């Protein structure tokens, strides 16, 4: 029996085999869509770049060299140098770690939070649902960026507060999805079976409802990541996100603003990095939606 037969077995003998088989089917379906392959490669490159930044970057991200200020792109400095003579290519490479941290932390805070609120709301219904969803709707109807700005202003500038502020503004969309999913499975027979067997609400929500929300959640989170990156970069650009000398892409663009008319590369290069990574998440998210969540194809 080859590994492929084992993965595609119609009657898996263990839970692990079933999960691996499903992951394999999703993976092969993704490979058939060229755009999601491109997206996957971009995200993989981002991961590898962040992991091996010290070995990839030719210069130090913070090492100043005032003799080599504002040099245009060349063989020696692929993306040129900034106003302190720092190599922009090296800074973009190191910046991938910051972007990845922001994206991961925002996803890890906001997705479970939204998932839990949505599932509780959908499972209990009644006034719990009305209060929680009223709250969610208010958050949803406010402009995200403005809200994030106000939160950062109160919490104080800095990358950690930027992450908290973005997470606070992103959970409501996930709560809506989780609630909708929960409503469709709440009255399913297997849920009644667990209830009859004496399973409490916590057990039902955590073990039997949340796992079924994950696939639509993964799709939505991936699609949202581009927005998270843009918001984080925007906060950095205004000066409320990552603080210098951290090589955060948005903050780098902000520094390059002064030189945009003559030394265009200082602001342009980090911007291209932002676009490529955001596009990567969009492509991958689109592909994942087609595979995992076909009923929502073409929406949003």
């Amino acid at each position: 029996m080859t590994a492929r037969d084992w993965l595609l077995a119609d009657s898996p003998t263990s839970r692990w085999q079933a999960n691996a088989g499903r992951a394999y089917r999703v993976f092969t379906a993704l490979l058939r869509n060229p755009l999601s392959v491109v997206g996957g490669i971009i995200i993989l490159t981002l991961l590898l770049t962040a992991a091996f930044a010290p070995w990839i970057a030719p210069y130090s991200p913070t090492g100043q060299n005032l003799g080599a200020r504002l040099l245009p792109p060349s063989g020696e400095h692929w993306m040129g140098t900034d106003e302190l003579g720092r190599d922009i290519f090296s800074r973009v490479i190191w910046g991938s770690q910051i972007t990845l941290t922001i994206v991961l932390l925002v996803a890890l805070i906001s997705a479970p939070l939204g998932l839990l609120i949505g599932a509780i709301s959908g499972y209990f219904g009644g006034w719990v649902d009305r209060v929680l969803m009223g709250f969610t709707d208010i958050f949803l109807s406010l402009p995200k960026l403005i809200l994030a700005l106000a939160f950062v202003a109160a919490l104080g500038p800095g990358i950690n507060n930027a992450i908290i502020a973005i997470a606070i503004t992103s959970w409501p969309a996930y709560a809506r999805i989780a609630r909708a999913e929960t409503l469709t499975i709440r009255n399913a027979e297997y849920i009644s079976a667990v209830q009859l067997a004496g399973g409490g609400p916590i057990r039902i929500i955590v073990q039997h409802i949340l796992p079924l929300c994950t696939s639509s959640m993964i799709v939505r989170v991936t699609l949202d990541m581009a927005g998270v990156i843009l918001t984080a970069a925007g906060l950095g650009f205004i000066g409320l996100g990552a603080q210098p000398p951290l090589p955060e892409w948005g903050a780098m663009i902000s520094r390059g603003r002064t030189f945009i008319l003559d030394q265009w590369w200082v602001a342009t290069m980090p911007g291209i990095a932002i676009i490529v990574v955001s596009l990567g998440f969009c492509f991958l998210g689109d592909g994942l939606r087609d595979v995992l969540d076909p009923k929502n194809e073409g929406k949003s």
Partner: protein
Amino acid sequence: MAIDQQSAPPPLAPGFPSRRMQRVAVDLGSFIVTLCLTFLGLMAITFFIGRVIPIDPVLSVVGDRATQAQYDAAKIAMGLDQPLWQQFISYVGNVLTGDLGRSISTGRPVAEDLARFFPATFEMATLGIIIGVALGVPLGVTAAARQGSWLDQAIRVVGLLGYSVPAFWLGLVGLAIFYARLQWVGGPGRLDIFYDGLVEPVTGMILIDALIRGETDIFWNAVSHIILPASVLGFFSLAYIARMTRSFMLDQLSQEFVTTARVKGVPERIVIWRHAFNPIRVPLITVIGLSYAGLLEGSVMIETVFSWPGLGSYLTTALLNADMNAVLGATLVIGAVFIVINKVSDVLYRVLDPRAR
């Protein structure tokens, strides 16, 4: 929330001429209630940000060298000795009477500042949405009509770029190309310094003020300054509007009545623009409304890049000076405008589309 109230139509109340009128009244009532609740939520959030998160709001006013007596006096003067719910009620009262506090950096009442800065944002965002609709709708329709062609692919790419290009970066690159290199447009600001302050503000929108005064020189100068930031904003609404138009049109074009029209020999142009496009005009209104609201948000970044004296610049300046009254005031106003546009386009959809009733 609104849906719950409609699911069971209440018995016909006396005084309403028809069931339909009654339904409109119930709709309107639930609309106003939701709107008020959302505003209350917005105020609760700004209140929370302003009064609860800072470690000690009194200290930030009196400074850390104040005596205990001064501190206590300031605390009572700010009403911070009262319970939180009472503070919230007086905060809501202040906001409703237009009292948003005084800005530390300008020294004027925040409400007055916002009224002065609003027209510049409104002018730019409106021009942006006009550009977005004028280009986005035809592009979306064409893409759907020629599904799979190179034009369709190009529009898909534009749509995705709308999600992944930072607005401030596009503005900077635009300045570098069209202002510094090609010199096709004016630079940052609303006018050349030479013209600054020559037009008496009437509406606060320079394009309109210049026309009212008959100052064509100033008008064209203002056009050269606004065109780039408005186009950058317009690009983002174009991307969104074109994508949604395309997807609505594809839905319509696969309907049977379209096939019937084609079989009957109706010219393709009429099939597309009359049979398929007419039904999507109503949902498009909602999309355009959402996009317009989004532009208000996008203008925060764009105004910073273009030194545009609007709400966005006011907000970012206030943010960097930790001028919380101004930050929260601007957040309230931008949030309120955002909510109103969103809800109104939602209601328009339900009023105009017979199927949504």
